[in-house]
């Protein structure tokens, strides 16, 4: 299949729209505006971080992930991360989310797939950790708004022995 044939034909949004969305999402995460961030997801959405090096078709029903949140747990994750008692992120680490190589892979307004590369830096108490990989999204477009139906963040490192944990939204 040629690249042209793979491009979605029934999609009202452009890559520019998607990039704006992703950059705004990254800015919310950089600023720890997690309540605003989780509002980008539609009710019933899910959020996944498979184990480092997992293939794109990894399934949380049969594989061990780091994070496999349904919508309820995603909202609980956000509540947790904003508490003083989420000790690992209090005080908040400083983070910078870099997004690039944005592509719309297919679909229509009801459900379209987006992929982007990411590099997220997290700094705390004199140490800086790097998380890198790609995000796969399933998004929807309705009433002039893009919403996230599923976000999966794939880490390309062999493991996370250096980073130790996935305590931020990467």
């Amino acid at each position, binding site marked *: 299949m040629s690249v042209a044939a793979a491009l979605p034909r029934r999609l009202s949004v452009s890559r520019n729209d998607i990039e704006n969305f992703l950059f705004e999402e990254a800015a919310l995460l950089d600023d720890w505006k997690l309540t605003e961030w989780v509002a980008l997801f539609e009710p019933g959405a899910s959020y996944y*971080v498979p*184990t*480092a090096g*997992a293939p794109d078709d990894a399934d*949380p*029903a*049969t*594989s*061990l*992930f*780091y*994070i*496999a949140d*349904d919508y*309820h*747990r995603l909202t*609980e*994750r956000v*509540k*947790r991360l904003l*508490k003083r*008692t*989420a*000790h*690992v*992120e209090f005080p908040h680490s400083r983070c910078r989310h870099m997004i690039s190589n944005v592509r719309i892979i297919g679909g229509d307004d009801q459900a379209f797939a987006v992929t982007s590369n990411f590099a997220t830096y997290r700094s705390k*108490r004199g*140490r800086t950790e790097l998380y890198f990989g790609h995000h796969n999204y399933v998004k929807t477009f309705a009433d002039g708004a893009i919403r996230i139906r599923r976000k999966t963040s794939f880490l390309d490192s*062999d*493991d*996370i*022995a*250096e*980073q*130790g*944990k*996935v*305590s931020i939204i990467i």
Partner: protein
Amino acid sequence: MGSQAPVAVSASPLVDDRSAQGVFRVARRVFVEAEVLDCEQREIFGKCWLYLGHESEISTPGDFLTRSVVGRSLIFARNKDGDVRTFFNTCPHRGAMVCREKQGSASLFRCFYHSWAFDLDGKLITRPGDESYAENANAHGEHNLVRAPRLEAYRGLYFINFDRDAVDLSTYLGNTKEFIDLVMDQSPEGMEIVGGTQEYGFRANWKLLAENSMDGYHGAPTHATYFDYVMSTNGGLGDTVVQISKPHDLGSGHAVVEYGAPWGRPIAKAVQAWGKEGEDEATALRASLTQRFGEARANRIAYTNRNMVIFPNFVINDIMAITLRTFEPVGPGQMRVNAWALAPKGEAPESRQRRLYNYLEFLGPGGFATPDDCEALALCQEGYANAGEARWNDISKGLNQERPSIEDEVQMRAFWREWSRRVEGKQI
């Protein structure tokens, strides 16, 4: 004088055990000094049984995986007859790592450097220019892969030992077998590792995770947000069913805590969030356990949580899911962790999904709890920068208790007494 007196790790005690006076302290030096780690590598990791992997990870002849155990690179494989073999992952010729894949299925392992190839028993089967070697060059296996000195299994759990003279595994595991059985009996079809390994790390000394893995005292303060989540999800902390809260010193450094807790257990205690389907399933699982083992043992399996440390660095936690975990030092202030989910074979897909969902609510580097342990242990390690002046960790909680609970420190003292027995006074 022809020889110097041996230099001991410490002239003063590293573990200050004066239990009768209510004192139990550990010198913070043991978390920071390279000499202590060298001694541990030899006296503990060089002599104790170390967990390698589970039989289900290499279930079919030809299956293999490569895994690091205290810095050694090992190949864990099942040969064509179905027997499990473990080799050091290094070519007998020049030492290159032979296998570079994390896992797979193979009929032979070939070192690409000079193309020596080995079968699944580690035996050299082909190499270029074989005629240039003396006829009896491999008469005693000199050109075969080197096997782990000892490899033994208990109920599907494979352990290795670098000490040929070590006691057998069954003797070593001793009283832990009662608790391993409570996990392995959860399915008549046996247990299996599910869907991969979580490989992560803590910026802390390895011994801190031995303590943390069975520490009932830190639960409420460190994991407050997890219990907030359980309450918010189930409308309260609910029924803990069993009121038991009991630490056990199992001898030889092994220890376990048994207790009731508010979370759901896939085997087999449902919580509100699982709905009627989850409750029905838990009831059916308990009925099946009762049929197999009688009511008392069935209830113990279903309702009681267990956090166990098998000395020195293997954890079996049977809590809101079952995790197996190893941790090993990569320096005094850094460790690597491998964690796996263990589950009954033949588990229904919905149950499996619920189990994995439950696992991730607490466990692992993205759970609602483990990242806070990461931070707590890192802060301890950073605090030990002051070990020269602020010298002692206190581990005396519960020394005056006739019936200690899991919030006391009986289980940690069991670990430290064995650690002391193996390390203190030994030559560096």
